[in-house]
């Protein structure tokens, strides 16, 4: 099946004229048409435009960049001029929001000739870890349709795992790329905060949001990263640190690399099969020449509490723009402006978005700011410092991505706190602003993928990609495909 190729494989075939971009695009479209009714990963299909673009690319016949002519899907929060984008929220779905501009990331991809074929499902405004809060309904795990694909980039992860595209874009604010990659058995890269531009991607929590990718191999992750990363005048938090080099050093091996195992990430509550898979991955990396050391990150237990103060506070501020005036959803016959705001927002937002707006509004309200927001910002400093200290002893850290494999649809419907706790191993990384690479490292006895994450110091993408590549070469987990 053509759509199951990695970017690297497809690029070779394009260059040798063994396939055309139209054929690749058509293969992805057919795959979506065949399997997506079961998965619900793709929420907007931009097929006609994609085929037109692919035809133009083929007629130029120049495949100079590895992404030229490669079809991809973007999470439904990436603005593309003229393409409906709804954040999977009724707030933007009703009078479908059609952005009049491109996000920096999709623009950079377009400049290299990558072909955008549509939009993927996400939790509403990326708030959730199962895509169950999407106004289009849940995305199913390609390995077991009674389970979730994870979230919030669940649509992107399921689409990559099911070969509906060659790669997909996601966002990671508290684990939203790494956890679905782990649940669906694909590779996900969460970058250092500031490595990629957030411009034109709908914000959730601005100090934590990162733009990254879901792919079929570590090599592909390096390719996409090098294409989308780098300073952007439209996002003042982007860094001008050079990004080239990740791809070149990928194959340099991990002899002598110091890998830390944080004991707090193997604590009680973790599924024994997950623990076993990650420990055996550490053993594989030891055989490849790495040195495995124990490290400690004692404030890990405060990460969820810190995150679920800071994130909702930033959400309450970012969601203020959805006022029924600038975009989409409206309310009929308002009494006055206040009534209009209240009715437009109350009927446009779903329950999880409202919950986070409420927590954030409370925590930022007069008299509570110091006790909640300021306190959480201080604990964030301690969590960040703790990672910096750990990276004085080791080059990278290896841990599980999630405590369990994919959970059942509806497992946490009545308990938002239990849902929040699913993020226990992923949110500390966003608080610290460091990069994390999620990659498949085994299967449970129920044939569900298990993922591990390689964490690097700030701007340390090169090292985690190199380590991930070495592991991938030595194992074949990433080549396993779900039967659909």
């Amino acid at each position: 099946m053509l759509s199951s190729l990695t970017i690297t494989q497809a690029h070779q075939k394009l260059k040798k004229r063994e396939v055309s971009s139209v054929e690749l695009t058509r293969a992805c479209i057919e795959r979506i048409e065949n399997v997506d009714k079961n998965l619900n990963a793709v929420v907007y299909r931009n097929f006609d435009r994609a085929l037109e673009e692919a035809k133009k690319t083929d007629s130029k016949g120049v495949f100079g960049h590895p992404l030229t002519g490669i079809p991809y899907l973007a999470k439904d929060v990436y603005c593309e001029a003229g393409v409906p984008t709804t954040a999977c929220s009724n707030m933007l779905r009703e009078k479908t929001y059609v952005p009049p501009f491109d996000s920096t990331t999709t623009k950079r991809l377009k400049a290299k000739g990558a072909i955008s074929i549509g939009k993927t499902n996400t939790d509403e405004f990326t708030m959730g870890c199962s895509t169950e809060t999407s106004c289009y309904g849940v995305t199913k795990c390609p390995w077991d349709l009674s389970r979730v694909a994870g979230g919030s980039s669940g649509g992107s992860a399921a689409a990559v795992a099911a070969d509906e595209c060659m790669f997909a874009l996601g966002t990671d604010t508290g684990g939203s790329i790494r956890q679905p990659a782990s649940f669906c058995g694909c590779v996900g890269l969460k970058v250092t905060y500031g490595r990629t531009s957030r411009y034109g991607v709908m914000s959730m929590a601005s100090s934590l949001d990162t733009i990254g990718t879901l792919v079929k191999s570590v090599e592909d992750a390096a390719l996409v990263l090098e294409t989308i990363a780098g300073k952007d005048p439209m996002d003042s938090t982007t860094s001008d640190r050079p990004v080239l080099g990740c791809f070149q050093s990928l194959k340099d091996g991990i002899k002598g690399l110091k890998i830390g195992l944080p004991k707090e990430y193997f604590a009680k509550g973790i599924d024994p099969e997950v623990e076993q898979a990650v420990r055996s991955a550490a053993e594989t990396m030891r055989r490849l020449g790495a040195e495995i050391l124990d490290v400690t990150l004692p404030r890990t237990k405060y990460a969820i509490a810190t995150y679920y103060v800071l994130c909702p506070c930033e959400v309450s501020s970012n969601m203020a723009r959805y006022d029924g005036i600038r975009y989409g959803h409206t309310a009929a016959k308002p009494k006055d402006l206040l009534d209009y705001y209240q009715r437009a927002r109350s009927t446009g937002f779903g329950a999880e978005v409202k919950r986070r707006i409420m927590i954030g509004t409370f925590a930022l309200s007069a008299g509570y700011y110091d006790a909640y927001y300021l306190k959480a910002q201080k604990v964030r400093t301690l969590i960040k410092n703790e990672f910096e200290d750990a990276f004085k002893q080791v080059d990278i850290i290896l841990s599980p991505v999630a405590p369990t494999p994919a959970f059942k649809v509806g497992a946490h419907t009545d308990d938002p706190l239990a849902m929040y706790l699913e993020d226990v191993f992923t949110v500390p990384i966003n608080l610290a602003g460091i990069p994390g690479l999620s990659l498949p490292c085994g299967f449970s006895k129920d044939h569900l993928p298990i993922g591990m994450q390689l964490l690097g110091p700030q701007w340390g993408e090169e090292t985690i990609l190199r380590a991930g590549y070495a592991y991938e070469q030595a194992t074949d987990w990433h080549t396993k495909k779900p039967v659909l």
Partner: protein
Amino acid sequence: MSTLSKAQVEHIAKLARLTLTPAEAEKMSKELSSILQYVEMLKEVPTDDVPPTAQVTGLTNTLRDDKVKPSEAAADALLGCSPLPIVEHQIQVPHAHG
């Protein structure tokens, strides 16, 4: 302060420009209280001399050239995203006072 009464929930909803049905307010009061109780654990962490982290990049004073550049999206295209009537290139919003 780790529980939120229904009345407090209604007050916060007003600040957030949301209207909750009585049933929603009841449910929200329980859910928010349980989340706030969980968050209480932050009190255990001594932070007296710890500076807050608002951003993690280490960048300071990122400035751009003070030059006028055309916007990527035309003004009328942005106005076109509004669900409300457009009058003379402006959005006509409901009256502020009834």
